[in-house]
């Protein structure tokens, strides 16, 4: 039997060493399954209307954790990602709000929308210091 070329444990462990980043691993995909499926439901116009009318009631139709529901109600995208949400699924939520990817990404950085847009105009966030927690680079 041949040995796999990549050690899965090392492969996954390295993802935890990236500052300010949650890689969408199988573990996160499992945790966020219903949160992400709820987001998918917002691709239908009638569901968006029902959600907008009473967000809490719509969320209560889904077997999501309370923390997931709170993250949605607060539009706290960092919290939603911590609860297993994926940005492309969460995009259905901020699109329902009429918000852009740039808006949503900006809210996760602690910067104002204007500050974030300005940073992008100036060439974006430098990778310097954002590569590795352990190696401090």
């Amino acid at each position, binding site marked *: 039997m041949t040995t796999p070329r990549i050690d899965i444990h090392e*492969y996954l462990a390295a*993802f935890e060493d990236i500052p300010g980043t949650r*890689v969408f691993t199988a573990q996160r995909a499992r945790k966020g399954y219903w949160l992400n499926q709820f987001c998918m439901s917002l691709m239908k116009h009638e569901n968006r209307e029902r959600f907008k009318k009473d967000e809490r009631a719509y969320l209560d139709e889904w077997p999501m954790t309370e923390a997931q529901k709170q993250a949605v109600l607060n539009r706290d995208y960092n919290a939603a*990602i911590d609860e297993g949400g994926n940005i492309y699924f969460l995009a259905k939520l901020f699109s329902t709000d009429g918000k852009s*990817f740039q808006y949503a990404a900006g809210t996760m*950085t602690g910067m104002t929308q204007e500050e974030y847009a300005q940073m992008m105009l100036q060439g*974006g*966030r430098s990778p310097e210091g954002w590569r590795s927690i352990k190696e401090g680079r």
Partner: protein
Amino acid sequence: MARITAGITSSHIPALGAAFDLGKTQDPYWKPIFDDYEWVKSWIKEEKPDAIILVYNDHASAFDMNIIPTFAIGCAEEFKPADEGWGPRPVPVVKGHPDLAWHIAQSCILDEFDMTIINKMEVDHGLTVPLSMMFGKVDEWPVKVVPVPVNVVTYPVPSGNRCWLLGEAIRRAVESYPEDLNVQIWGTGGMSHQLQGPRAGLVNKEFDLAFMNDLVTNPERLRRMPHIEYLREAGSEGIELVMWLIMRGALGDNVEELHRFYHIPASNTALGHLVLKSNP
């Protein structure tokens, strides 16, 4: 015999589609990008490809958390634009090329690439934005499209080398298709960007420019690049660049760079665009 004559890499970000659909292409923010794409628009009018193999990733539109194909191929007669939360983009329905698509699917499977065959699928900005960028506003798309969605969202995504080898298999498949077709392959997505977490907004110009250079002249380095390097250097969504290796693998050894464009920012991303000719 069908031939892959050229490859294109392009961003597919939704904000470009929105700028296009809302008539903002001449706004100062977007103008440099749309101005540059005028080159490829006139080039492609001369080239008149019959079909595009369009490598892209679905952004939780056709595939939810229930089905996550690593490599899929759209074999349907047509593909409708998806409603991604703000209504479908006002662009024509995408016409497929079922004969070519099924031929590629069968050939790749016999070549040990176990493609997922899709007969009904909506297509999102990942596929329709590049079409708008290359063909502009049209009543119907002037080409048939074979969509090749790749999972670059749920880890592990395919390795760069696996993507390259799939590209080679696609080339062999196209070359055994009996009809005389001019086929292009497009690799979309990228370049460096991160859409999530406190590190959102990451852009790495040095990495991107080296990637573009090596895609043309030294693809061996890129074939061996591990996922962690994309993640550290190009941001969590920069991993989309592995799809460019499918395009490059399908072009063969001898490529000629016809056009290049690099621009920061397009919303959250660095935009990279290459037009490569495949020489026999």
